[in-house]
Structure formats: C-alpha cells, structure tokens
C-alpha cells in the first residue's frame, strides 16, 4: 500500500538551517546537507529545503547546497523559496532537485504552473499555499505570509490543481509554530476537492497531531520542522507510533 509520507522541512538562510515560530524569531539549527542525510537515515520519506535568503549571494549559496544535497541524499527532495520563473525552476532541477515548490510567484502569475507542468511534468511542481483563517474564511498570503491577497484557499488550490500542479503544500498560518496540531478541517476539505496529493504543514507538536492529519485531515503527507530539528519528535518513533494507529508508513 502507498505509504503516508513524513517530510522534515529545512529553512535555509546563507547556507544554514533556521526555523521560526509564526515565521519570525529565527533560531539556528545546523548544516542542511548533514541534517538532510541524517533525516534520510532516520526514515524521512522526502525532504523540503526552503531558501529564505533574499540576497543574490545567498541564492548562489543555496544552489550550491542543492547540488551537495543531490550528491549525498538518496531520497526525493523539493526546493522552494524565491522560485519565480522557468529559469529558476530549470536551475534548481539542473542542480539535482526532484521537485520545486512555488508560492507567491504562482499567485502573481498562475500560468507559471501550466508552463512548469507542460515543460517539466506535473510531478516536479509543488504549489505551496500559505493561508490564514479569519471571519471571512481562509485567505491566501504572499511573501512568506506577509501580504494578504483576495484569493481564497480552496478556490486557489482547485485552480492550481487544474493548471497542472502535482501536489499542494498547505501551511496554515494560524497553526504554524503553535504546536497544537494541523488544520485538519481545511485539510480534509482540500483532500476531498482536489485530485492531487495534499501535504499538511503548520502545527505539528506531538505524534498524535500527525495521526490526526492523516485520519481527520486525510492528508497524503505531513511536513514539520522544529519538532524534528530539536529532537522533540524522532522520526523512527513517530513511524512506530503511526503504524500502531493503523496508518501505513514506510519503515
């Protein structure tokens, strides 16, 4: 049976991994390539590396890191952050990434999804969505959660699906960094409305939260950062736990 995937996410700035709470207060957490290899050995199913550097120099460092990851890690990995054009996609895939994730660039110019899908195939195109829920419902945000848009989460996710996205990576800004569980209701609705896999992100604080993302949220994969980086949850123990809960995981 197809296994539910556990995906550690590494935010990278100037060649080092960092992780914020609610997207601020960054803390250092090590060398991305070493961390990636360690996670792979522990049984992570995929890895995500997000470039949170703004500078041109930082971008170059990131591309070099992608090459080092590709040479050293034998599981699939996705790279995101600052991918705005087909040239950026080509550069990351050429550096050895298996998939790329696009976020703000896709909201600003949705045709980018069609172009990537047609040229490189849907399987490389992960559309990441940062959304926050308020009285109006779920709204998509740009630039790492800094700028609200007019787009609703479900409407945008359906459009991305139709345009050829291979997966949706949904981060709930309400839940991110709070460690009280994933946005399971929104996840379940995404899973029901879309024909592509949904990756849950934002809110992991305990093993039970992963179980709930897969059962209540019907997610295909769950992504987390700090709980893995600081060893609060260890991947082998998490997978052991999930299999006792009748969730199919790769061990």
């Amino acid at each position, binding site marked *: *049976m*197809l*296994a539910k*995937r556990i995906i550690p996410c590494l935010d990278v700035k100037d060649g080092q991994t960092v992780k914020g709470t609610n997207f601020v207060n960054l803390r250092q957490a090590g060398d991305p390539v070493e961390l990636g290899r360690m996670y*792979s050995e522990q049984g992570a*199913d995929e890895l995500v590396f997000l470039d949170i550097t703004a500078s041109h120099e930082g971008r170059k460092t990131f591309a070099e890191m992608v090459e080092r990851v*590709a*040479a*050293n890690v*034998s*599981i*699939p990995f996705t790279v995101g952050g600052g991918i705005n054009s087909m040239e950026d996609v080509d550069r990351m*895939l*050429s550096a*050895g990434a*298996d998939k790329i994730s696009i976020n703000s660039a896709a909201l600003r110019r949705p045709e980018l999804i069609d172009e990537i899908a047609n040229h*490189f*195939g*849907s*399987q490389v195109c992960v559309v990441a969505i940062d959304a926050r829920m308020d009285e109006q419902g779920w709204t998509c945000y740009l630039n790492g959660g800094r700028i609200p848009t007019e787009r609703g989460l479900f409407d945008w996710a359906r459009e991305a699906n139709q345009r050829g996205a*291979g*997966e949706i990576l949904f981060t709930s800004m309400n839940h991110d960094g709070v460690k009280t569980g994933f946005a399971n209701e929104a996840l379940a609705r995404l899973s*029901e409305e879309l*024909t*592509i*896999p949904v990756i849950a992100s934002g809110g992991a604080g305990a093993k039970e939260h992963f179980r709930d993302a897969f059962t209540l949220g019907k997610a*295909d*994969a769950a992504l987390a950062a700090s709980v893995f980086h600081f060893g609060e949850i260890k991947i082998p123990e998490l997978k052991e736990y999930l299999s006792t809960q009748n969730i199919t995981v*790769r*061990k």
Partner: protein
Amino acid sequence: MKVAIVKYNAGNIYSVIHALQRLGVEPVLTDDAETLRTADKVIFPGQGEASNAMQYLRERGLDEVIRSLKNPILGICIGQQLMCRHSEEGNVDCLGIFDVDVVRFQPQRHEDKVPHMGWNTLQEMNSKLFEGLKEEPYVYFVHSYYVPLCNDTAATTNYILPFSAAMHRDNFYATQFHPEKSGSIGEQILKNFLEL
C-alpha cells in the same frame, strides 16, 4: 567497471549519476552506439513523455541500438515503459522488448490519485535485482502510466490494481520505481544490477 547511461531527452539523470557515484562508479553519459554496446552495464533512465522520447531515440537510431544490446541494461521509470510494445502516452509504438502495452491508471475511487507518487511496496520479487532484500521493501514511485502484469513481470506493486513494478527478460531489466531515489533499498538494487 564501465557503466554507460543512455543520453536522450528524458530529464533528471543527475540523481542516477549521483547514486552510481555513491556506489563508487563513475558512469559515462552517452548516445554513442559503440560506447553503449561495449559498456559492462547500461542504464536507460528517465522522466518525461513517451512519444517525445521515442521520437528522439528514433531520430538518432538509438531505438535499434538499445534493442540489439547484449550487455545487461536497466530501464528506469519511463525507461521501463519505453522498453514495452506500445504506450498510451502519446499513442506511440515503443521498443518492443517486452511484449506488453503501457496504459494509464484509471482511478476507481477519489483516493486513487494519479500520478502514483510516493513509497510503495514490492511483492512477488523474482529477479536477481532483488537479492538480499527483506520482504515487501518500500521503493519510490512517480508515474501516471503503468505496465500491466505479464510474463516478464519481475516484481509487482499494488496501486489501484497490481502492476509490473519491475521486469526482466534475458539481458533486459527494468523498474517502474526509482532505485536512485529509494534510499538504502534502492542502493542495494542498483548494486545487484552492477554485480550481474
């Protein structure tokens, strides 16, 4: 050991190169017939679209070269599909090494998402490629088309229905999954191929 990777228009051969390098092999990427024929092992990797790939191979005469190889060759993903008779993807005649046609997954329930993407298990493993592996090992798949079960099936996986996760006939080997992305299991499979 001389390992040649077939150079054609199917993306992401880097991961195959890196995986071989981790096993201590420095492969050559080539579309030269003589280099392919004289290599100890040939790898026919791929991600991409079947009809474009076939057109590219035909224009360069690589279809004949691959069909006539006598050394062990391993097709990966689209490589396996191109080694079959025909593909529904782009409705194209393929290399015809395996006497079976490639078809698209038809979802039966909402949970049946296409592409089949992620880690799934191998069953009924019946090839030297799988020597030394435990029961039902997990390997990594990304594909929307599949090879139905047939006489050349060397391992099966169940997604929507049981299909050919690996194939073998004479010197021709193939996997639908990506051994180069399947962690230590994939490494063992590649090692087994290199040691054939």
